[in-house]
């Protein structure tokens, strides 16, 4: 096979043309958000070699189901669901070639290249976006339960007197978990004025304070909010509330006169409709208030149910909950509502409204996700790494060329030609299999330039030995290539084996390194065994009478 110089040259030409083809700069279409937040396609021309996050800048997130507050009944199914939701959200968010995949049994890895606002991306990835509509309680259930709750607290030894020492006592009682759930300054509760029972002193019906006339709405001084929340979460206290009633906090504090209050809502446990029935959501600017709002559209079934329920509850108040938090003050239901509705977001930016619409449209996460690993590299650091890697590569290559030509003379020049082929084939091959070039991978390429000449060195040394044994030039070259083959194959196979294990165990950057290493070994074997051999054949063909070899 390939015994003639012509057929060998054709093979080499095909390899070179192929590599150049895969490396040739081409048009790539990228989706990116424009100034108005709408996605549009942009076409750029560049070398189609994929750069890893560490070279390009970007964010890598590993996510797991967060079962600390809500236990999943079927984690495998919930993870699949979360994966689908994540794909939709990131697609809407608009990132070039995002990677979203399941890793192992319980993890989702999200890689977003070249993003400029990591905090926003993180918020979009993590947001549960669970939308619910609930009717506020009209039976004054919480007011009636408050005395019983206070009694329970008194029995537990939690008193309203001696407030300064209380928070720590509460925290001790609650243990680490719920203490963590309220990371805000828990001593702030001390400043709240306390009268009567612990809770009845802090929770006042909004109607009584003149803050509003919504039934089921209660005002809590903002500084006391973390403490009240943790007290209400004590199981013995929560049991005092009648069945079918659930308590939910407002998403943000409200100013009532000079005081900042946090509204607490007693709600009908049953949701009239949830985000599962949502088909579309759009961010808009309210022409009246100039504030952002999100309009939504429900599917047919959801619309029917929504219409039925709102028809029954005309004159009642309806709370809109997102991820268990009441958004704004519950509006009164004026009339039967069909498939279309809107959520006003007072005091938020348009971008927040857009992000909310985006996450609503993509669907809710079945179980919240927690970030177990985050890596983020700025684009400037990435381009800096590339520049340094290329500098090191160039200088390394120059040194190798000097050593090879200085030591092997004309044969060294052939080895350098083979080395050029090696670099071209490695990069072309990486581009062909769409491998990702990472910083360790870049270092691997630079290192492999030094190692790649090994095969040529083995062959050249063998030829020298054969020449010293008194063989003719032609015979020495043949024998040299033949004998060196065993060593080249054995040593390369063992390196590929270690690289495979590296690939198996590694994450992102290290995987990239392993792929580069394997591709480098393949390219190095092709160039040393095939390309250098062909160059020698041509050389000997042109100088058949050569009695000494420049080696």
């Amino acid at each position, binding site marked *: 096979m390939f015994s003639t110089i012509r057929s060998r040259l054709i093979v080499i030409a095909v390899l070179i043309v192929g590599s150049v083809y895969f490396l040739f700069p081409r048009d790539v279409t990228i989706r990116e958000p424009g100034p108005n937040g709408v996605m549009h396609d942009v076409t750029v021309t560049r070398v189609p070699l994929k750069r890893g996050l560490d070279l390009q800048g970007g964010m890598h997130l590993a996510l797991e189901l967060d079962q600390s507050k809500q236990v999943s009944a079927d984690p495998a199914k919930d993870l699949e669901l979360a994966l689908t939701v994540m794909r939709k959200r990131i697609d809407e968010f608009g990132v070039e070639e995002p990677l979203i995949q399941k890793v192992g049994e319980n993890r989702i890895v999200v890689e977003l290249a070249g993003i400029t606002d990591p905090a926003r991306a993180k918020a979009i990835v993590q947001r549960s976006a669970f939308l619910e509509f609930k009717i506020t309680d009209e039976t004054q259930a919480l007011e009636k339960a408050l005395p019983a709750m206070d009694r329970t607290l008194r029995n537990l030894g939690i008193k309203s007197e001696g407030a300064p020492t209380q928070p720590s006592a509460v925290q001790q009682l609650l243990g680490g978990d719920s203490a963590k759930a309220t990371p805000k300054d828990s001593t702030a509760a001390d400043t709240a004025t306390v009268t009567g029972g612990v809770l009845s002193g802090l929770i006042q019906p909004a109607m009584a304070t003149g803050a509003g006339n919504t039934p089921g709405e209660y005002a809590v001084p903002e500084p006391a909010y973390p403490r009240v929340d943790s007290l209400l979460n004590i199981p013995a206290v929560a049991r005092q509330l009648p069945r079918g009633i659930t308590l939910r906090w407002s998403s943000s504090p409200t100013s009532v006169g000079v005081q900042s209050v946090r509204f607490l809502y007693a709600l009908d446990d049953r949701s009239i409709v949830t985000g599962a029935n949502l088909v579309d959501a759009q961010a808009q600017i309210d022409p009246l208030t100039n504030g952002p709002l999100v309009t939504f559209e429900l599917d047919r079934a959801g619309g029917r149910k929504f219409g039925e329920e709102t028809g029954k509850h005309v004159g009642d108040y309806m709370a809109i909950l997102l991820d268990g938090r009441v958004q704004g003050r519950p509006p009164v239901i004026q009339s039967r509502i069909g498939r279309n509705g809107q959520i006003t977001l007072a005091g938020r930016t348009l971008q927040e409204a857009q992000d909310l619409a985006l996450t609503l449209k993509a669907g809710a996460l079945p179980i919240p996700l927690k970030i177990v690993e985050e890596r983020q*590299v700025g684009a400037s650091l990435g381009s800096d790494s590339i520049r340094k890697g290329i500098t090191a590569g160039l200088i390394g290559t120059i040194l190798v060329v000097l050593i090879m030509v200085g030591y092997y003379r004309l044969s060294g020049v052939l080895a350098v030609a083979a080395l050029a082929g090696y670099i071209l084939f490695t990069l072309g091959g990486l581009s062909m299999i769409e491998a990702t070039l990472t910083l*360790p991978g870049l270092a691997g390429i630079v290192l492999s330039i030094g190692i790649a000449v090994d095969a040529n060195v083995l062959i050249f040394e063998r030829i020298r030995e054969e020449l010293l044994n008194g063989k003719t030039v032609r015979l020495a070259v043949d024998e040299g290539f033949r004998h060196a083959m065993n060593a080249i194959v054995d*040593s390369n196979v063992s390196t590929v084996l270690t690289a495979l294990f590296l690939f198996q165990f590694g994450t992102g*950057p290290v995987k990239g390194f392993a792929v580069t290493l394997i591709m480098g070994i393949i390219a190095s074997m092709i160039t040393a065994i095939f390309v250098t051999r062909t160059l020698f054949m041509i050389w000997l063909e042109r100088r058949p009478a050569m009695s000494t070899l420049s080696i």
Partner: protein
Amino acid sequence: MLRFFGHASYDFIRVRRTAYVVTAAVLLPGLFLLLVRGLNYSIEFTGGTLLQVQSSQPVNVADLRSGLDREGIRGAEIQNFGAPNEYVIRARVGKPGSDANDTQITAAAVRKALDGVLGAGKYTVVRTEAVGPKVGGELRQKAFLAIFLSFFAVLAYLAYRFEWRFGLAAVVATAHDILATIAFIAALRLEVSLTVVAAILSMVGYSLNDTIIIFDRVRENLHKHKNESLVQILNRSINETLPRSILTHGTTLATLLALIIFGGAVIRPFALVMFFGVFTGTFSSIFIAAPVLMAIQKRWPGAAARGHLNPKPAPAPPRKAQPAGR
């Protein structure tokens, strides 16, 4: 023709005891340091938070530290990284009960501290890593498993291509390289990151490569010189492959030097570990793999075990028996 060590005929096997002493002199202090100080694992393995910060003007480390203390981040490592206005701040996960959420909270607290010390907008965070302790633990396990399994794969391949005695000798030499490299890492207080583990595995590949090339020559010479003892064959094989070793190590070291000097701070540990690996790999191929192969052949004689394995007195250097035509 320029040729280094073209006619070398050193008696490598005879000095093996001296070589063992050298090995012990390197390994024992290194392993002592390893036991006393332990390895400096990166946050990828321990779990924790890392922020690389570029500030518009040089920063006083003490100011930075007191700022971090105010935010409740104690014992954070602050390290100058490349330029005087560039810092890496590492806060490891300390307490065992902490979870991934804490690393996120820590990252936010570090940013707040930076806002206080440097002023908001006066700095850029160019790199962030926040790794939960569970992920870190898994990674550490996987790294050890990868190194361990690659051992067996190589042993199996060499057993198939040569025979198990050669495979075992190569693996002993590789184990030596890994120990020596870890000792080196402990001595230099290099941070053990994923990239450094990658360097250790590539060093393993490189050193094996070297050992295999010598063994390949041993296999060939066993057929070619049927009247020589194993000791002579080993010495001959090492000497014959010496010019190749010098040249390949030379070019490899040249590229590594380029990486160390010009490759940047992120890649430097990788290049340093590989640089050391080239030396220990060369040493172990000659002074560990070959004598161990001899010891194995002596204990469990195979086809290659011939001649007097324990030469007394030292045999004549093998090359001198060759015709003067070389």
